[in-house]
C-alpha cells in the first residue's frame, strides 16, 4: 500500500451532507473488474450532465484542479460497502477526506488504500470548509497529526494509533497477520473444532451439497 506522510494541496469543498457511496461511485460502473483507472467515474452524475457536458461541481473547477484533499460534510461515504468509492477517489488523486462523520465501511476502506479520512466537526469544520473554499493550500501532516490552514492556524486531529502507523509505513496488513498471527489463528481453529464443531464445514458437507454434477440445475 502507498504510504501517507504529509501532503500540501488545495482542498475541494463539498458542503453537502449524506454523500453516499452510490453518489461517489455509481453502481453501473461496479461491473468493471479492476481497481485501476476508476477515477474517471468518480462522482459521475455530479460532474457530468446527461448530455455529457461538465457541471460546475467543485472537482471540475480550475481552482481545485489537482486537489488531493476533499472537505465534505456529515455522513460522507454512507451506504454501500463498495471499495470502488475509495479506489476512484485515490485514482482521481484524492489522498485525504475531511468530514464531521463518515460511513463506517467507507472509513475502514480508506485505510486499506493509503487514503486518510479525518474527522473534524463543529466550528473547526466550518473553518476548514471556509479555507477550502478560499482556494488556499492546506497541509495535512500525519506524523504530527495536524492540519494547517492556508492563513496559518494549525490544529491537531485524532486517529487510531495502529491505523496511523499502517498509513505511515504503507503496511501490508494481510502480510503482517500471516507473518505474526498464523499460529494464533491455527490454535483458535483447533480449539473451536472441539468446542463448537458445527461452525466448521471442512468435513466435506459443503462439497456434498454442491456437487459438480449439476444435479440442481434446471
Amino acid at each position, binding site marked *: 500500500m502507498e504510504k501517507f506522510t504529509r501532503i500540501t494541496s488545495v482542498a475541494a469543498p463539498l458542503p453537502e451532507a449524506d454523500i453516499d457511496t*452510490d*453518489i461517489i461511485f455509481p453502481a453501473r460502473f461496479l461491473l468493471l473488474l479492476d481497481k485501476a483507472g476508476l477515477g474517471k467515474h468518480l462522482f459521475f452524475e455530479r460532474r457530468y450532465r*446527461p448530455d455529457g457536458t461538465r457541471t460546475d461541481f467543485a472537482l471540475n473547477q480550475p481552482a481545485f484542479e489537482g486537489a488531493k484533499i476533499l472537505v465534505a460534510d456529515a455522513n460522507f461515504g454512507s451506504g454501500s460497502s463498495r*471499495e470502488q468509492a475509495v479506489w476512484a477517489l485515490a485514482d482521481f488523486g484524492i489522498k485525504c477526506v475531511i468530514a464531521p462523520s463518515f460511513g463506517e465501511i467507507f472509513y475502514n476502506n480508506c485505510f486499506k488504500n493509503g487514503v486518510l479520512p479525518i474527522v473534524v466537526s463543529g466550528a473547526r469544520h466550518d473553518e476548514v470548509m471556509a479555507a477550502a473554499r478560499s482556494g488556499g493550500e492546506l497541509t495535512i501532516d500525519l506524523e504530527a497529526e495536524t492540519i494547517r490552514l492556508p492563513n496559518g492556524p494549525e490544529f491537531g486531529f485524532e486517529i487510531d494509533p495502529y491505523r496511523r502507523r499502517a498509513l505511515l509505513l504503507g503496511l501490508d496488513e494481510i502480510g503482517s497477520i*500471516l507473518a505474526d498471527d498464523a499460529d494464533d489463528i491455527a490454535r483458535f481453529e483447533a480449539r473451536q473444532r472441539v468446542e463448537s464443531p458445527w461452525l466448521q464445514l471442512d468435513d466435506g458437507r459443503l462439497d456434498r451439497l454442491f456437487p459438480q454434477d449439476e444435479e440442481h440445475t434446471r
Partner: protein
Amino acid sequence: MAARTLYEKVWDEHLVKTYDDGSSLLYIDRHLVQEVSSPQAFAGLDAEDRKLRRPAAHVAVADHAVPTRMRHLPLPEGLARAQVSRLEANCEKHRINYIGMRDDRHGIVHVIGPELGFTLPGATLVCGDSHTSTHGAFGAIAFGIGASECECVFATQALRQRRQKTMRVALSGTLRPGVAVKDIILGLIARIGTNGAVGHAVEYAGPGIATLSMEARMTLCNMSIEAGARVGMVAPDDVTFAYLKGRPLAPAGADWDRAVAHWKTLPTDGGAVFDREVELDIGALSPQVSWGTNPGETAAIDGQVPDPALEADPVKRAKMERSLRYMGLAPGVAFKDIAIDRVFIGSCTNGRIEDLRSAAAVVAGRQIAAGVEGIVVPGSATVRLTAEAEGLDRIFRAAGFEWRESGCSMCVAMNDDRLSPGQRCASTSNRNFEGRQGQGGRTHLMSPAMAAAAAVTGRLTDVRDIVGNNGAAA
C-alpha cells in the same frame, strides 16, 4: 464474569488475540462471496501468490449483475458476463463452492445464507456487501466489508477490528394491522437518522421481538446499515431454532443438541449495560414511505412532503432542498397524491416468502393501475419455487406484474432492471439514494404490502385504505 450482551459474547468467542493497542484479531467463520466485491480481492491474493486458508468457509454466488429473465440463455457478451465468468473461474481456482445462476438454490447472498443454514447463531459472518447485517437476525455477528477485507479473510480467516459500542433498540407494543416490520425499521431510521447508529452494534430486543418471524427479523437487521450500524442482531430463540432445524448446513444429530444448548446461552444477560438505549413503541407506527434521497427522509403515509423552510439547521435544510429537487416534489403535497410509474417488489430486504405473501394478499383479485409497470423478483430460487407452489406467481401475473427470477435486480440496477430518468418507483428495497435504481430514477421505500397498494392505485397509498383495517395484508 460480568454481565455481557449478545454481541459481546459472540465477539469474545471469536477473539483470536488482542494487540497491544487494544485492537483485536477476530476469527471469521463464514464468508459469502459475490461477483462485485470479489474480483479485486482474488486478484490481490493471486498477485502475492497467497492461498485461501479455508475454502470450506466460503460460499459464492453471482447475484448483483445477473439478469432476472431469460436465464436459460447464456449471458450476453458484455461486462456482466465477464464479471460472472471471473467469479466462476476464481471459485474453480481456489476450490470455493459456487452456486450457479440456474441452480435451484441460487439467490441473493443474504437470502440464501439463511436458507442453506450457512448462517448460524453465534457465528461470525462477513460479505463484501453492506447488507450483511441481515444475518444478525440469527444472533450472528455479521457485517459488510470492503474488497480488501474480503482478501484478508480469504488469506487469514481473520480480521483486525475494534469492538463496537453497543446499542439496544427495545421494541414495545404490537404492530397495528397493515403495518409491517419494514415500517419499524424505516420509522426507527427516520427517528435516529442515517448515521444514528454509527459505531454501534445494534441489538433489537424487547417484547415486540418475540412474535416476529425470522423473515421479519431479517428485514429489521438488514436495514441496520441504513442507520449507520454495520451490525444488527436479534437474540436466538425457539423461532430461530425452528427455522434452522433440518437446513442443509445446520448441525444435525448430537451436534444439533449441543449447538442449541450453546445458542441458548447467547442472549444478553440481565444487567448487561449497553452504551446506548433507544425505545420504540411499534404500536404507534403507521405505514411509512420515504420522500427523499436517504432512508432517514421517511414519514408516515398519511402525511405530506415536508417544508425545508421549517428546518433550522442549514446543512439539513440544504440537504432537504436538494432531495426534493431530485425527487421532483414540492413541500406540502400529500403523499397519497404522488403518482408512480413503476413498482419493484424484491431485494435482500423484502424478497422473502412472507414479503411476497403480504404483497400478493393486497394484489389478489385486483389489477395494476393503467400506465404502471410492476416486477416481482423473488430473493432466491427457493422463494420463487415456494411462491409458485402457493400460486402467488399466478396472482401477481393476473394483476399485471412480471414474475422474474432471483437476484438483486432493481435494488441496485446493475442489470437491465432499472428506472429511466424521472421515473418514480414504489420499491420494497433498502436505499432511495440518487440514481440507486437507475440514473435519475426516483425511489420511494416502503413495505411489500404498501408497494402492492401503490401498484393497484397508481399512487402512494395507505394499504389500510385498500384492504380495510382487518389486517389481511399486514
